[in-house]
């Protein structure tokens, strides 16, 4: 978590700065099959986050020594566009994106029926076009949709949300300011139906009770977000959708 500071994150009426209730998540919109070349794709807006995900595969794993003779290898690549953050980011992977790519790859591996495609890889390319806190969870949630839209067999969808602590209150889905100046951030993702945990990271300061409360709130939220995933997959893509969502943005 960021630097301790005097920044107020709860206003005089006891409400979060963007007016959300403690368990209220930001607006989410997912559109599928927005790309021509990819085998599957999804465009996700979650608050101010804009994330494009493309899936290629299963295809022969390359280089050969990365092949697993028993299953498909999921290779997620989380990348931030140079213009996605306030200060221009130099293109290319850094330590943060390397770690996020790893935990997303692992979380997706628990959901895909990887045993069905030995010696292959499934590439999940994630491009964060605009970043607004919670990009790893938004990316993972969108990636799950993109995998499904590519027709890749999965035992379950992956769906996530983050909880956090702000002025000693446990709240859902931290905003950018809450992420920068809050007390704790707990991104978590589960298999949609079984609620098995496939991603959990935490940084900040939580008592065991607070941890229990936070994870409970996340689990509830994943039901709502999973519903948005299902709706996105049932809609047929039409080009106006993407357009509307953009012009409607910010």
């Amino acid at each position, binding site marked *: 978590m960021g630097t301790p500071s005097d920044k107020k994150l709860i206003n005089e009426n006891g409400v979060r700065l963007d007016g959300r209730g403690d368990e209220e998540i930001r607006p989410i919109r997912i559109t599928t099959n927005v790309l*021509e*070349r990819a085998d599957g794709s999804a465009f996700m807006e979650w608050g101010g986050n804009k994330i494009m995900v493309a899936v290629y595969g299963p295809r022969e794993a390359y280089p050969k020594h990365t092949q697993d003779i028993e299953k498909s290898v999921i290779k997620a690549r989380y990348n931030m566009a140079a213009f996605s953050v306030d200060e221009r980011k130099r293109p290319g992977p850094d330590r943060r994106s390397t770690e996020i790519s790893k935990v997303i790859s692992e979380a997706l591996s628990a959901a895909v029926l990887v045993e069905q495609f030995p010696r292959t890889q499934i590439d999940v390319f994630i491009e964060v076009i605009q970043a*607004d806190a919670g990009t790893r969870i938004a990316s993972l949630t969108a990636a799950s949709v993109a995998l499904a839209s590519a027709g890749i067999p999965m035992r379950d969808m992956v769906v996530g949300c983050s909880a956090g602590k702000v002025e000693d209150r446990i709240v859902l889905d931290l905003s950018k300011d809450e992420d920068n100046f809050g007390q704790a951030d707990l991104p978590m993702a589960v298999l949609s139906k079984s609620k098995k945990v496939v991603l959990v990271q935490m940084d900040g300061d939580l008592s065991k009770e607070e941890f229990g409360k936070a994870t409970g709130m996340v689990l509830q939220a994943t039901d709502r977000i999973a519903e948005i995933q299902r709706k996105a997959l049932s809609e047929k893509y039409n080009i106006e959708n993407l357009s509307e969502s953009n012009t409607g943005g910010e």
Partner: protein
Amino acid sequence: MPKDARGVLSEIKKGYISKRLKEGLRGDQRKLSEFRTIRIEPNFIPRAQGSAFVHLGKTKVLVGIKVESGEPFPDTPNQGVLTTNVEMLPMAFPTFEPGPPNEDSIEIARVVDRGIRESKMIDLEKLCIEPGKKVMIVFVDIDVLDYDGNLIDACTMGVVTALHTASYKVDESSPETKLPVRSMPVSVTMVKIGDELVCDPDLEEEQMSDTRLTVTFTEDGHVRAMQKGGVGYLSMDQVKKGIDMSEEAGNKIREYIKQVI
């Protein structure tokens, strides 16, 4: 056309495209100088200082502009800096690979940059804050999201739109200022198939061809940048015909951009 996208086309398809072209028809019924449908969404990334999402047929590129303060180059102490980078994202095509820009994306970035720069589009002197010490740097970054041919023109029209709609602050407390732009360059890329030049090639047409020509015009009808690409050649007459075609096609693009900005 990026090298690794070559040779995917079947011989049968090639023959068909070639035959139709002799009849003056392209695969999608376009005329030789006709572009595919263009759709540009400006301000797609509100957090950037300028941006544009370009759909050129099925090709999709996203341009984002960041304007930050920094040091000028020693030989131009009174001028801001323009820098252009193209990322051919691996999501855009099955054979694109992650990693630093390869020769294809470097060429695209440099041709796009040259068209903007030589058109004196940005008044770089207005971006000087303190001579020799502090100027504004205009970072133009382009994400190629979906590749179906003619990246140079898709990128150029995106950059021109994004620059025309961009505004910046010198620092946190400064007022927001429009980026000082003063021209509207447009690039037009053609490939040679058989003996014909066709504008705005899609992927199949790029795969059919071994020669590419790009011409960038400003509204005064002057050529500001050119680039021949590919292992083939052009006759001098073809070059001149290409310039005429590109002026005509470019004017239509310029009209479209004016509508969206």
